[in-house]
């Protein structure tokens, strides 16, 4: 702070101010025309794309649901035949979860966080642009299945054995597994990006206790994605290689277990509910403060509740599996956690109510949507506690009661806050003020339509109407309630269309908005409307949780160029990096500008996956070469490799550039990526032990443990690679580039030796992976680790090359640190994999 305050030089004169603003505009704007759009990486552009694409998928998923409701309007209807019904139910759930809910919230986070935190962009803009293209291509990939012999029809949960190669021949299930995993790349890259954004790029002075609750919610959500998505990604990979290459993970006859799929799926699937709820809750916390016109009651308790929810939500997954025959005691653990999670949810709810109660609530349109949220979400929460009780769950399992519950939770808990947030932040995007009249009509149509659609389903479910079935028995006597649901579903749809029309009219004809139209306190409202591509001409310095309420002059100061980073003398896109807890300035981060690389990489992956699904495996493998070339180019040109060691953030305030800073965003990006990868690896180890627990023989038929000599040699080589990498970094830190390069080469040679020795050791004792689950899982485990060794080899080669070009030295350590960290991680993972593969079967 003292440094930042010291940065108050004489303001530049008007001509200089104009020159600086012009330069900022030039540096930060997307390129012109279509090329400019395709190469854009700016967070506003990418965030808005996520949001627009998310709403498009909402419309498509909504249309599918209309067909479902028409089919169920009366028993024995023939609007959809059973196969088509299964496809529509599958695609509706898949679309809403994977292509709407998660990506659109990431879009909101990407668009809003830099503005709320007082920075100019996300610290890894290419990564978020790449995520967007993966999301778009993945979604299109999934929907292209309608053109190629049928859409997936195994349910959004894709249970085996229904979806294995025996019961779902053809490629419909492959479209799901590959398309969804492709789109999930966006979630994972967003998680990396958002954690680093929240922790490292907040405005100076925004220490941890002044962070907006929205940022807390996104931070915890991003960590949940990091731990929650890998189990599903792993499950999808395992099922795909079972389908494509005949491995045995889920097939009982060859030692597999279909429940492994359910565990991995719901280990993702339940946290997923909170992954979409927490960002929405962050929006609620933001809006409640603005419209209650007072600070949040119990800010600290909400922080506690968000963190607790993040953890507890991982203890709920088996409550989707209460009916599969797991011991009752084990079920009761999950029942307990399912009820316990109501505690932090309740804390948040009461804090919001208390804030509104003690404030002066202002019932504008966003607040109306929040009122709808409170009403619906509480009902959904209550049925959630009912479903957490094992005996009650058995009664209504797989009935429409569950359909009612999940729509109350997801639409109430996510869609209503999302619409509230949409109306609240629209002026920021358009510079126009949303009208109230059509918006309110739309709200009531959605609210009434929603409740009349889903409230009756509680009853039809308790009367025994099954879910996921294309019709129901006339003897149940639920046809009138279903007709009501269908009719109300159309009211809901009309309401959604009214929202769409209202937003369209707003874009075209909305009244111009004054700055900060809601008189909010958070930093995004300090921006001129609509904001310039660089957001803040000077990075603001804050000293309060609602900085605009405390310092009304802040908006004007941050639009001028007298403050931090106000003079873009370097001609590059620059962010200010600050301390994780303190929010004190610690580095200047130079980020990348517009580039084709993210689009090229995503398009390359799309073609590769298309070849894979067409069973052109050699071609798919060959496409790895251009993909690696694109990634190498990406890594080589990231940020500014020629950045000076120190950069002036303001006259007299020189800070290290990121390559010379131990807290570089690239470093933290690596840490979070490895966390995600570790979760993927842990899921695979879990799969190993799960299969072992249910197996009659271990090692399976045709495999044996064999002699230890060769595996031990392999392990020695691997550990040697790790040691060589350490020596390399030590050499770099003593300004001995030859030692760095020699150490990296030695690590690469030892790593290659490990791959050969370990491959030979396994080939001698293991059966073909198609023979038994044991061989499948061991080959997969070893292969998974082998890929990491290859990545570490590439990392070493990259750092070697950078050193040759004089871009790495004792001060600019980042590339060397990353290469060595990759080795350390790979060795650690390898030791665990080695113990599991070579030691455990001898002990078991």
């Amino acid at each position, binding site marked *: 702070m003292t440094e930042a305050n010291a940065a108050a030089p004489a303001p530049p004169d008007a001509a200089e101010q104009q020159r600086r603003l012009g330069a900022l505009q030039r540096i930060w704007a997307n390129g012109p025309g279509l090329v400019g759009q395709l190469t854009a990486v700016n967070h506003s552009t990418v965030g808005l794309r996520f949001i627009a694409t998310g709403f498009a998928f909402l419309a498509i998923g909504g249309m599918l649901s209309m067909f479902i409701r028409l089919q169920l309007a009366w028993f024995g209807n023939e609007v959809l035949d059973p196969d088509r019904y299964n496809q529509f139910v599958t695609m509706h759930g898949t679309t809403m979860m994977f292509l709407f809910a998660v990506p659109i919230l990431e879009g909101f986070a990407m668009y809003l966080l830099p503005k709320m935190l007082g920075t100019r962009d996300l610290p890894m803009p290419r990564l978020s642009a790449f995520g967007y293209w993966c999301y778009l291509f993945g979604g299109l990939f999934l929907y292209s299945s309608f053109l190629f012999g049928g859409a997936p029809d195994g349910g959004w949960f894709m249970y085996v054995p229904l979806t294995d190669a025996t019961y779902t021949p053809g490629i419909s299930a492959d479209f799901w597994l590959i398309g969804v995993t492709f789109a999930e790349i966006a979630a994972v890259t967003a998680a990396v990006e958002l954690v680093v954004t929240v922790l490292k790029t907040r405005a100076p002075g925004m220490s941890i*206790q002044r962070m907006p609750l929205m940022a807390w919610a996104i931070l915890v959500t991003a960590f949940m994605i990091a731990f929650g998505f890998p189990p599903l990604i792993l499950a999808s990979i395992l099922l795909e290689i079972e389908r494509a290459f005949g491995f045995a993970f889920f097939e009982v006859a060859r030692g597999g277990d279909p429940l492994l799929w359910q565990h991995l799926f719901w280990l993702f699937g339940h946290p997923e509910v909170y992954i979409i709820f927490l960002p929405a809750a962050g929006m609620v916390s933001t809006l409640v403060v603005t419209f209650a016109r007072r600070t949040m009651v119990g800010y600290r308790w909400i922080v506690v509740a968000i963190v607790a929810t993040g*953890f507890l939500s991982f203890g709920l997954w088996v409550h989707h599996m209460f009916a599969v025959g797991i*011991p009752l*005691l084990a079920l009761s653990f999950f029942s307990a956690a399912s009820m*316990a999670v109501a505690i932090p949810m309740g804390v948040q709810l009461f804090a919001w109510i208390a804030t509104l109660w003690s404030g002066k609530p202002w019932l504008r349109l966003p607040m109306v949507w929040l009122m709808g949220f409170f009403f619906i979400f509480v009902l959904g929460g209550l049925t959630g506690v009912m479903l957490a009780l094992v005996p009650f769950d058995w009664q209504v399992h797989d009935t429409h009661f569950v359909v009612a519950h999940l729509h109350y939770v997801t639409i109430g808990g996510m869609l209503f806050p999302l619409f509230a947030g949409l109306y609240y932040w629209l002026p920021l995007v358009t510079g126009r003020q949303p009208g109230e009249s059509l918006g309110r009509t739309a709200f009531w149509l959605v609210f009434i339509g929603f409740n009349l659609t889903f409230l009756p389903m509680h009853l039809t479910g308790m009367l025994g109407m099954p879910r996921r079935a294309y019709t129901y028995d006339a003897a149940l006597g639920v046809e009138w309630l279903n007709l009501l649901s269908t009719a109300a579903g159309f009211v809901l749809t009309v309401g959604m269309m009214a929202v769409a029309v209202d937003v369209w009219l707003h874009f075209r004809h909305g009244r111009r908005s004054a700055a900060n139209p809601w008189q909010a306190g958070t930093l995004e409202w300090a921006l001129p409307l609509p904001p310039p591509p660089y957001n803040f001409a000077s990075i603001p310095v804050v000293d309060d949780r609602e900085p605009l309420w405390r310092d009304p002059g802040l908006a004007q100061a941050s639009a001028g160029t007298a403050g931090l980073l106000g003079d873009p003398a370097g001609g590059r896109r620059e962010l200010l990096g600050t301390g994780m807890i303190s929010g004190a300035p610690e580095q200047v981060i130079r980020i990348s500008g517009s580039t084709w690389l993210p689009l090229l990489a995503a398009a390359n992956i799309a073609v590769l996956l298309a070849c894979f699904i067409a069973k052109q495996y050699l071609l798919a493998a060959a496409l790895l070469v251009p993909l690696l070339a694109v990634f190498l180019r990406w890594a080589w040109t990231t940020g500014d490799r020629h950045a000076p060691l120190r950069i002036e953030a303001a006259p007299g305030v020189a800070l290290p550039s990121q390559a010379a800073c131990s807290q570089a965003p690239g470093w933290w990006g690596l840490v979070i990526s490895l966390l995600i990868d570790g979760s993927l690896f842990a899921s695979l180890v879990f799969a190993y032990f799960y299969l072992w*627990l249910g197996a009659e023989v271990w090692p399976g038929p045709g495999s044996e443990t064999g002699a230890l000599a060769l595996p031990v040699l392999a392990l020695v080589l691997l550990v040697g690679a790790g040691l060589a990498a350490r020596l390399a970094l030590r050499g770099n830190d003593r300004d001995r580039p030859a030692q760095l390069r020699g150490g990296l080469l030695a690590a690469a040679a030892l790593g290659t030796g490990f791959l050969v020795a370990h491959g030979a050791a396994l080939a001698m004792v293991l059966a073909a992976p198609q023979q038994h689950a044991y061989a499948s899982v061991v080959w997969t485990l070893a292969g998974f680790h082998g890929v990491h060794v290859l990545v570490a080899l590439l990392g070493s080669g990259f750092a070697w090359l950078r050193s040759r070009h004089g871009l790495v030295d004792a001060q600019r350590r980042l590339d060397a640190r990353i290469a060595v960290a990759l080795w350390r991680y790979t060795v650690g993972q390898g030791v665990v994999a080695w113990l599991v593969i070579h030691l455990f079967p001898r002990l078991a």
Partner: protein
Amino acid sequence: MSALSPLAPGRLTGMALPMALWALHFVVVYGLVGLGCEHGWQSRTLAGGNLLSVLLVALTVLVLVPVVALGLRARRAWRRHAANQAGDPRQRRHALIAMAATALAILAAIAIVFTATPALLLPPCAT
């Protein structure tokens, strides 16, 4: 443990630690029920109960010890930071995290006890 250690109660990782212990306990007791029932541990006796239930309770007590210790340590840190916070923004920042660590330790302890209570009430392997 120094205030700069990543596990100190004033750090984000230190704040999350009690809940991480809850997660660890949760995974271990769930895994243990699967493992024990597979190997018939419910029909072996130890210390007056069946081996599996006794193990589950023992593990619960074992994990509660560090959770309670972390909670007490966080409470001390919270008081210390809160007492010194006037005029010192650094103390104020750490007071928030130490307070959250205290509350999360309490919640983790409740969740651990809540999760494990059925182990005292139910036969371990009935389906």
